[in-house]
């Protein structure tokens, strides 16, 4: 299964990005890692170019909130992304917040899996479960 991943916005948390890359490969995924400082459009374009089934965006500095709002509009411009599993994880707000509220907000933006301040392996287990549920694992 193919996964496009990277860190969104002006965020240079490269260590987290590398750990995600290694963990995905260890679980057998084919990884297309766009690295840090990635624009939202590049994520979607990479999914089109690779035929990835999963788009996994990470954010550590809280910038995801601003970018997340753009997701529905941008995604609507693409004709063939409806079946892609959209996942986001890391530290998804600036400051603190109620996790349930945060998850609900990002789901409204169009993300299927939202992993706010969650252990990486737990998030990857969630991805595995959803992939199996959709019959693409």
């Amino acid at each position, binding site marked *: 299964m193919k996964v496009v991943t990277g860190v969104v916005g002006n965020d240079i948390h490269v260590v987290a990005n590398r750990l995600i890359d290694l963990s995905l490969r260890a679980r057998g995924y084919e990884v297309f890692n766009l690295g840090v400082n990635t624009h939202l459009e*590049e994520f979607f374009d990479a999914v*089109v*170019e690779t*035929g990835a089934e999963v788009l996994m965006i990470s954010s550590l500095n809280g910038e995801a909130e601003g970018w997340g709002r753009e997701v529905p509009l941008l995604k609507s411009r693409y004709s063939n992304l409806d079946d892609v599993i959209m996942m986001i994880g890391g530290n998804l707000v600036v400051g603190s917040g109620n996790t349930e509220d945060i998850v609900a907000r990002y789901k409204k933006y169009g993300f299927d899996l939202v992993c706010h301040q969650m252990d990486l392996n737990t998030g990857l287990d969630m991805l595995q479960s959803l992939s199996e549920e959709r019959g693409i694992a």
Partner: protein
Amino acid sequence: MTATDDKLLIDVGSTYFKLATANTIEQHFRDFNRDIFDDLMGKCGDTIDRFDKQDIHICSSANGGLSTLIIGVTNSFSLKYATNIAFNSGINIIDTILYQNIEEYSLPSDLIDVVIIVGGVDSHANLFSSALYRYIEQLNYSNLVFVGSALDAQQMRDNIDNVVVLPNIIDDRLHIVEEHLKEYLTNLYQQDIEGKEDIKHLYDITANQIYSTPFIVNRALPTIEAKFPVADPFILLDIGGATTDIHYSKDLVEDNIVTENEYDRLVFKRLGVYKSKQSLILAAQANEFTYELLTHLKVTENIFHEQSDKATKILMQLAIFLVLCKMSHYRQSYINLKLLAINSIVFTGGITKVLTVEDIESIIVFFYRKILTSDHKPVAILDSDYGIWTLGAKV
């Protein structure tokens, strides 16, 4: 191309011929009523006759270059990478189509020299469908090359006659692979020259490949410090009679293109001070800062209708301003340069005959203050004897 004792270097531009020997650089205004070859031999025949064919190296931008249509599946990868390679291969006229919307694009009426189809990494298949083939069937083109996913190559061969299939320009890490398409486009440029009546006879005087001038200028940039006091990062503006070329250090681009090139190129077609004068004036009239700039230069818009040395000078200053605008976030282009990081701006082309460093720096200061609200002031360097292109074939 460096002038050594036994070499003659010739640049055939849209407005001027330039000839360089070890000691001299000559420039001649072209006679547009004459065949390029006849005009060149009439003006410079004595010099040319002194050299053997294998010692004459020619570059040219006079044939207008190849017109290109790129069809790709995304803006960030396939279209951007193919555009980057085409510009660096010396191509001036590039139109793009985002494949998912192909049915919304009108058909170009002119003959297209080369159509480039690109999309997908090699492990992804079936990126294109019958919509592409229907569009291609209606196009009027001379060459078509596919540089997308290897898994789609056979489908292209089955559906498009005479398609040339080259290795993918996108590798499995989504990085750009330039060499195959670049070589193909450079060779097409040579074939284009050989097929054009008024320029093909240039091969009667040289035994070497004729390259496009921007390709040669781009190749000269890593050695530019040998001739000019340039501080990195820098841009080079070649504001010519028909088009404007910008060559820029890769350090100035925030981009996902990872290549070994130190410098890339882009072109603003129909932005020149001679053949493209009218379109330059239209571009100026569409820019809301133009009138403020004209006031700054102590003239009015009536200058656009004048035929004088002063009008030419103002037009050239406007060209510099418009080019800087097009590269800034103010007017989003194919790429945006980090203009506040530029230390030097090198100018070549026709404008160096007319403008002084002071004339140019006044425009640079105006641009940075008005558009970028900054006091940054890169140093302007003039290639006043057109020498930069002669460095290009040294590589």
